[in-house]
């Protein structure tokens, strides 16, 4: 490639690199010229040159719409113009005395200057000074805080994360009003330079975990960080698995609870989804509502959820296996009913099951993607396809419809959407296994699945912990949910258990009486 003549793209790259490598010269015209060249065709970049009473030439550079203009006028322009006179020396130290807004930094290179402008800061340059002052007052319209739609609860806080990082961190800081709550910021993305924040509790979290998270984040070298999902794919332990190894949530209460358990959260500017690591299968099977309802009720609901998760994964396969290999296992009366309804069906049970499950997935996907106005049309058509019409058409039998319907409902019981997707997908290989080898095939695939889950790690934490490896003291928050006062130790995900007591249960009444 080196021998070929330079392409226009190469030339553009060359020019950008050359311009960025320059430092500020102190000559206002020259510096502005370079910035103009850098931001060539950038119609939203505003250059405002002005002269003060003492003859100092200054220029403000900012992005239109990303900077609070009123603030610039009130705190920079007005003090500079009104409170300086001919006697004021034209240097930074004396001029900045007048500006009521504190500057955030002083920069000297073109690269820093362009970064500051792009991030929404206001750059103040002056003739004769080889450094520029950055006023960080980014302003952008943000979506207002609304109830998280994907993770709604009946009882519990109603606020959800938005696309603005600062608002999200505020929501967390408001919940954890402690200096131990840390927010480590770093920028990811060659071009996008997206701000990310690692949130954790100092003194609770294993420092190694924070270091590991930071290191994994720093390794990410991409053009643009579009969403937190990109981070998830870059930092997970095993990329070749359908199972999510990082918990995702748009609820600040979930994030704050997680970091109080010694886990680490990553927030990304521009994404309302926070990542929490490490996570386990059981954490993904929990809903925040579990902690807001009474412990017995929550335990019962967890059981329902686990049972239906099992149904969602295995029910169509078991139906296929039993129907095509183990007919003697069906209770006689049911067998006769099934045989009656299957009489006119041209397809084998496996094809029937694959057809209907795939149709159901297609309908679900269509319903998610379609605009709300058309959504109801899909629902109506869907009810026809997975319903009586399909039976009348002689394509599927009615027991199959039942199986698909139960499976569909069951798969929506899984609180974590990525985990639900994973379980829906692995259902298909299991179905194939059932169609080829019957119950034996199901057992084989289930064994492979178990081995895979046992081998899976999330930031070094086994995916099935605390069940495998078994940790007795942490079982109180897995398939059961202990009363909160009884659940008095923090889980220890990585490293040793320090600072383990997280609450002191109130003393019982008898105890008080004795005292």
């Amino acid at each position: 490639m080196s021998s070929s003549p330079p392409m226009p793209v190469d030339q553009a790259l060359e020019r950008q690199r050359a311009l960025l490598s320059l430092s500020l010269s102190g000559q206002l015209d020259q510096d502005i010229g370079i910035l103009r060249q850098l931001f060539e065709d950038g119609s939203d970049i505003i250059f405002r040159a002005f002269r003060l009473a003492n003859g100092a030439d200054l220029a403000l550079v900012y992005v239109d719409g990303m900077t609070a203009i009123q603030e610039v006028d009130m705190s920079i322009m007005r003090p500079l113009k009104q409170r300086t006179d001919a006697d004021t020396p034209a240097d930074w130290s004396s001029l900045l005395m007048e500006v009521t807004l504190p500057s955030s930094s002083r920069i000297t290179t073109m690269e820093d200057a362009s970064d500051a402008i792009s991030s929404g800061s206001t750059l103040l340059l002056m003739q004769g000074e080889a450094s520029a002052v950055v006023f960080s007052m980014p302003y952008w319209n943000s979506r207002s805080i609304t109830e998280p739609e994907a993770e709604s609860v009946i009882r519990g806080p109603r606020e959800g994360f938005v696309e603005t990082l600062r608002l999200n961190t505020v929501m967390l800081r408001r919940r954890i009003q402690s200096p131990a709550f840390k927010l480590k910021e770093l920028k990811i993305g060659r071009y996008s330079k997206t701000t990310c924040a690692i949130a954790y509790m100092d003194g609770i979290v294993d420092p190694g975990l924070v270091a590991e998270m930071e290191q994994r984040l720093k390794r990410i070298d991409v053009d643009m960080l579009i969403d937190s999902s990109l981070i998830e794919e870059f930092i997970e332990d095993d990329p070749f698995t359908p199972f999510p190894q990082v918990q995702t949530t748009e609820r600040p209460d979930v994030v704050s609870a997680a970091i109080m358990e010694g886990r680490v959260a990553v927030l990304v500017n521009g994404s309302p989804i926070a990542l929490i690591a490490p996570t386990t299968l059981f954490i993904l099977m929990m809903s925040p509502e579990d902690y807001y309802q009474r412990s017995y009720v929550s335990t019962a609901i967890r059981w329902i959820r686990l049972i239906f998760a099992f149904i969602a994964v295995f029910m169509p396969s078991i139906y296929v296996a039993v129907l095509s290999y183990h007919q003697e296992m069906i209770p006689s009366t049911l067998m006769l009913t099934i045989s009656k309804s299957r009489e006119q069906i041209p397809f084998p049970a496996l094809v029937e099951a694959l057809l209907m499950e795939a149709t159901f997935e297609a309908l679900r996907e269509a319903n998610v993607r379609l605009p709300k106005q058309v959504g109801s049309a899909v629902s109506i058509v869907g009810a026809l396809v997975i319903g009586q019409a399909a039976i009348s058409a002689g394509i599927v039998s009615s027991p199959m419809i039942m199986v698909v319907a139960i499976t569909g409902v069951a798969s929506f019981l899984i609180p974590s959407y990525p985990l639900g997707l994973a379980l829906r997908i692995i259902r298909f290989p299991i179905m194939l296994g059932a169609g080829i080898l019957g119950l034996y095939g199901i057992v084989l695939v289930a064994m492979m699945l178990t081995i895979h889950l046992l081998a899976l790690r999330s930031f070094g934490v086994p995916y099935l912990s605390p069940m495998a490896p078994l940790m007795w003291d942490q079982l109180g928050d897995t398939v059961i949910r202990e009363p909160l006062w009884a659940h008095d130790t923090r889980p220890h995900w990585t490293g040793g258990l320090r600072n383990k007591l997280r609450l002191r249960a109130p003393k019982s009444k008898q105890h008080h009486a004795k005292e």
Partner: protein
Amino acid sequence: MSAKLRRLWAFPCCACLLLLMTGCWDRTEINDLAIVTAAGFDLTEDNKIKLSVQIYAPGNPGQQQGSMGSEPQIGGSEALVESAVGLDSADAAAQLQEHLSRNIFWGQADIFLIGEKLAKHGISEPLDFLTRHPHPRERANMYVIKGSPEDILKWQPNIERNSAEVMREMAVIQTGLNITLLETQVSLASETRTALMPIIKMTKSGNKASPTLVGAASFRNLKLSQEYNVKKTRGLLWLRNEIRESTITTKVDGSEGFASLNVFNTASTLIPSIGNGKWKIKVKLLATGNLTQNSTTANLSLPVEVKKLEEAFKKVLQERIEGSVRLAKKSRTDVLGFAEQFHRHYPKEWRASKKNWEEQFTQIEVDYDITLRIRRIGMTGRNQFLIEEEES
């Protein structure tokens, strides 16, 4: 695509090829099965086995489409009965398969019938077929049929789906014996090599003939040795501790009417003893029941009268059991489980007399220790109507 990714895909691809390209799936669709709900074995004139099967015919579901929401018609699909003759059961089954467009599926057969003729000739033949074949359920019920099994299979009941279902329910409600294929196997393999099976006969009740339990048949050396009528069968059930609930009726001394007792709780144990070379069995029976009818003049509000009634019931019970024991002894077939008790408690003596057990069995003395309790005498103390009659 990285090398790791390629390796990752190689495994499932190979697995799929291996599994899918063999072309030898042993999958069978339900549409390709002739589901046998009951089967009957009988002997033909020329000593061949006649196998009759009742097959569930699913019918056409399309016919039901018009009346959606209406309840499915019971008995709308006729039970199909096919039969074939062969040298043995397996041969007959193979012959039968030739008549059918679908594979015979034995996995759902709940009932196996044995014709009386075959039972007298010997049941080793069908039993071997049913136990050797992997499909038939061991929990299927066994019946001996007076007459042709085929007739019972063909019979179309009014309230159940097919005759197999009727016979299964008969066993479940336990008015007679509930003998499964497994139990037959086990009891035939035990010390005395005897078995007991309920007998069914088509009898006319009301305006239609229907299968009825008419007793039980005991087998010795795999051949039918003795038939017990319904009363005697119940005597056996008392001994075998298989009675769940029963009603006994008796006449009380010095009174006109009858009294009936609904026994809801029974427990019987057999206690063997050998003294002076005399083998004895003590039948210890504990029965508790509620009085369901009292047309006698006995005033049951008095405990003395209740005691008297209890004695009367006890006598009836003992007579019943004695009758059954007598019949068992007569046929030299130990269906009462005496051998097992002696084997357990007196293993040495048992081994010595094992050879001529049949002879020994007839000599065993049976004692009865029956305790019968009337728990409740019902809502009325004494029979008011009868009392008034007396006074007027």
